C-alpha cells in the first residue's frame, strides 16, 4: 500500500489514465495541436471534431443538448459567468438573488461582488442536517427576485439538495435557477430534461478530468441569456471568449463519458467503503457526523472529533491526505463556514475532518485509515487538558475562562 493514502477526492481527483491518453493525443507535434478557431485548415478541423465529441459526452451525462454546453476554465468561472451573467443581463427585471450560506466560495464571493454593485442577496441558512427547507426558500422569494443559486452537492458535508423540487418552485415563479454541480456530476444522476434548471456549473477535475477545465450548461428552451464576462474572439457563441484548451476539453469529455458508464457500479463500491470507514470509527467517544447521512453523496464522510484540533489532526494524520473544511478555504484557519451554518459550535467546526473516497480508494486503505485515526485521535486527546476535564465530568460550556 502506497502512503500517503489519498482521501481528498472532493478537493481534486487524479486524471484517469484513459483521460490522460486522450489528452496526449491532442498535445504533441505529430498529433492534433491546432487552434480550434482556425476554420481554414485541416489542423483546425481535426481539433474541432474532438471538441464536438467532448461537448456531446458532457451533454450526455446530464441529458442535455450539446448546444447547451459552454466551455470555461473551471467551475469557479462557470459560477461567476452564470451568476454575474444573469444579474447583469436581467437587472432591469429585478436585483434580488437568493442563495444559501453553505454554497462554495465561488458563488458566495460572486454574490458579495454583486452586492457591491447594488444587488440584494438573501443568504438562506440550511437546517441542521445541511438541507434547505423549501418553505423557507419560497418565503424568501420576492417579485424582484431574478435568480436562485443552490448547489447540488455540498463540497464539505456532501449533502444532496432537492434540485428537482427547487426547480419546480423557481419555474413556477419565473425565476432563473442556477445549480453548482461541481461536486455532483458523475456521482448523482442528473437529468436536465426532467429537472427545471436553467444554468448548471461543472468541473472536470472533480471527476478524474483535468484541472483548468469546466463547463456551464445554459438552457435553450426556455431560453436563458447571459452577459459575457470575458470578451475577445467571440468563442462559445459569444458567451466565453478565449482559445479553447483542446486537450483539456477532450479530457473533460472522456471523463464525463467514463462517469456515465461507470457511475452506478462505482457508487456502490464507494458507498461500501464509506460505510466501512464510518462503521470503523463511529463507536469512538465524542465524535459527530456532519450533515445528513441519507441524502448524501456516496464518497463523503465529514466528522468532528471533539477535543481535537482539526489542523493538528491533519498534521498527525500525515499518512492520510484529508481536508479540514474545503481545500479552497483551507489556507485560512477560520472554522468551516459550512459547519457554522448548520449550527456546529466553533470547537466542533474546528475539529472536523472531511474524508472523501474515490475511484482509486481500496479496502486496505480504508482499514489502515481506521486504524490510524483511532490511534492518533486517542493520542492527541491524551495531550489535551480539555479532554481531561471532560473525562472528569466538567461541563466545559459552563466554564468562565479568565481573560489574560
Amino acid at each position, binding site marked *: 500500500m502506497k502512503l500517503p493514502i489519498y482521501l481528498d477526492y472532493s478537493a481534486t481527483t487524479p486524471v484517469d489514465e484513459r483521460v490522460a491518453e486522450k489528452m496526449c493525443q491532442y498535445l504533441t507535434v505529430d498529433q492534433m495541436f491546432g*487552434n480550434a478557431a482556425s476554420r481554414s485548415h485541416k489542423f483546425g478541423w481535426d481539433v474541432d471534431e474532438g471538441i464536438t465529441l467532448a461537448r456531446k459526452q458532457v451533454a450526455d451525462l446530464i441529458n442535455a443538448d450539446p448546444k447547451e454546453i459552454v466551455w470555461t476554465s473551471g467551475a469557479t468561472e462557470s459560477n461567476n459567468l452564470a451568476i454575474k451573467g444573469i444579474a447583469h443581463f436581467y437587472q432591469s427585471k429585478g436585483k434580488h438573488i437568493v442563495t444559501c450560506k453553505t454554497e462554495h466560495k465561488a458563488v458566495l464571493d460572486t454574490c458579495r461582488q454583486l452586492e457591491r454593485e447594488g444587488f440584494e442577496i438573501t443568504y438562506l441558512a440550511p437546517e441542521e442536517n445541511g438541507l434547505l427547507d423549501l418553505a423557507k426558500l419560497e418565503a424568501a422569494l420576492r417579485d424582484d427576485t431574478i435568480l436562485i443559486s443552490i448547489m447540488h452537492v455540498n463540497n464539505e458535508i456532501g449533502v444532496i439538495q432537492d434540485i428537482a423540487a427547487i426547480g419546480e418552485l423557481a419555474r413556477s415563479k419565473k425565476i432563473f435557477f442556477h445549480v453548482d454541480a461541481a461536486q455532483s456530476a458523475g456521482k448523482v444522476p442528473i437529468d436536465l430534461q426532467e429537472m427545471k434548471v436553467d444554468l448548471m456549473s461543472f468541473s472536470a477535475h472533480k471527476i478524474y478530468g483535468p484541472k483548468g477545465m469546466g463547463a456551464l450548461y445554459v438552457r435553450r428552451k426556455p431560453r436563458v441569456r447571459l452577459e459575457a464576462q470575458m*470578451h475577445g474572439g467571440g468563442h462559445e457563441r459569444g458567451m466565453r471568449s478565449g482559445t479553447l484548451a483542446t486537450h483539456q476539453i477532450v479530457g473533460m469529455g472522456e471523463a464525463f463519458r467514463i462517469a456515465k458508464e461507470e457511475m452506478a457500479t462505482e457508487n456502490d463500491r464507494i458507498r461500501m467503503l464509506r460505510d466501512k470507514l464510518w462503521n470503523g470509527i463511529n463507536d469512538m467517544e465524542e465524535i459527530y457526523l456532519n450533515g445528513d447521512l441519507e441524502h448524501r453523496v456516496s464518497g463523503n464522510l465529514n466528522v468532528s472529533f471533539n477535543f481535537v484540533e482539526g489542523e493538528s489532526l491533519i498534521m498527525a494524520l500525515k499518512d492520510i*491526505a484529508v481536508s479540514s473544511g474545503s481545500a479552497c478555504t483551507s489556507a485560512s484557519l477560520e472554522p468551516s463556514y459550512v459547519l457554522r451554518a448548520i449550527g456546529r459550535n466553533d470547537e466542533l467546526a474546528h475539529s472536523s475532518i472531511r474524508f472523501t473516497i474515490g475511484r482509486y480508494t481500496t479496502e486496505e486503505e480504508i482499514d489502515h485509515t481506521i486504524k490510524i485515526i483511532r490511534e492518533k485521535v486517542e493520542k492527541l486527546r491524551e495531550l489535551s487538558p480539555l479532554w481531561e476535564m471532560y473525562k472528569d465530568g466538567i461541563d466545559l460550556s459552563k466554564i468562565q475562562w479568565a481573560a489574560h
Partner: protein
Amino acid sequence: MAIFFDNNSTTPLNAYVLEAMMPFLSEFYANPSSIHTAGRKARDAIETAREQVADLIQSHPSQVVFTSGGTEANNLAIRGAVCGMELDSIAISPIEHPSVRDVVFSLQKQRSVQELAVNSNGQISTDSVAKFIENNSNFLMSVMLANNETGCIQPVSTIAEMVRSSAGFMHTDAVQAAGKIDVNFEKLGVHMMTLSSHKIYGPKGAGALIYDKAIDIAPLIFGGGQEKKLRSGTENVAAIVGFGKAAELAKEKLKENYAYLLGLRARLETQLKDIPDIVLFGDKSERLPNTTFFSLKGIDGETLLMQLDTQGIEVASGSACGSNNLKPSHVLAAMRIEETLAKGAIRVSFGLQNTSQEVDELIDFLKKFTNISTSH
C-alpha cells in the same frame, strides 16, 4: 506529413514541456490549496513555474498572476484596471487582438474609448499617443508589443514613458512577442503585460498577467481567492507547470531560436521576391523573426489558402480568432491597405519545428500556382 506554418495561432507542445507536465496529471495531482503534503507539492510546482515565467520577461515572481490564457489576462488587465482604479478613458491601438478590442468596447458605455493611429508600415504613431495624452488624464492605454498578423514590433517603451509622465497606466499584450524577442518588463516600463503559454510551445489553458503592484486591479473571477485574490479557481497545475517549463526553454534558447526563425523567414522572403506581384506587409518595420504577411495581387486569400491546404501546407489568412468571418484583416484596414489587396493576405508564421525544406515546398507551390493563375 502536413506542414504547419501557423505558429502565431498556436504552437505544438515541446516534448520536454510535456514531460514536465505529465507527473502533475497522474502522480502529483493534489489541489494546491490543500494543506497536506501532496497539496504542498502542487503548490511548490506552481511557485517554481511562477519564477520561470517571471524570468522570461525579467520581472519578479510576485508580479505574476496565472490565468486560463492570454484572453483572460487581457480581460483582467483592462477591465480590472479600469474598474479597480476607476479610470475615465481608454486608448488602444487599432491593431489589437480581439481579446483587447472586445473588452475595451464592452466598457464603451461607461468610459470614453479612443483608437490610436497606425502608419502604413504597421507601426503605432507616437504622435497619436501624444495627442491622446494631451486631452486625457486618468486613463489606461493598451498597445501590443508585437502584432500577431504583421509581426511588427511596436514602440512600447517610448509610449509607456509618455503614459507614465502623464500619470496614466499602460498595458501591453506581449503574447506574440514573449519567447521570440527579448522582453524586459522593467525596461519596457509598462504597468501590465499579458503572456500566453500555447504561443511558446507550452500547453493551451495557461496564461499570465504580469503587473506592477503599485496599481489596483479588480478581479474578474471571484471564489476561493487563489492568485492573491486576483484570480479565483483551482489552479491548472499541469498547464502552469508546462507554461513554466516552456518559458524556461524559451529564455534559455532565445538567441538561438531567433536566429533559426529569422533564417527560415529570410529564405522565404528572398525567394518570394522572385514572384511577380507580391506585396509584403509591415516589412519596413522591425518585426518578429518568424512572421511574414503578404498578398499576391489579383489572388484571393481564401482561394490560395485552400489550395495550400490541399497540398498539406497550413497558413492563415489573418488571425485565427477572426477566421470565422471573411472580412479583411482589421490590421491591414488600419494600415490603409486597399481592400482587394488586403483580402488576398496570407500569413506565414514559422515555428521551431519547421525546416528549410518545408519553406522550399511552399515556394515551389507558390511559383507553380502563380504561373497557372497568371497564364489564363
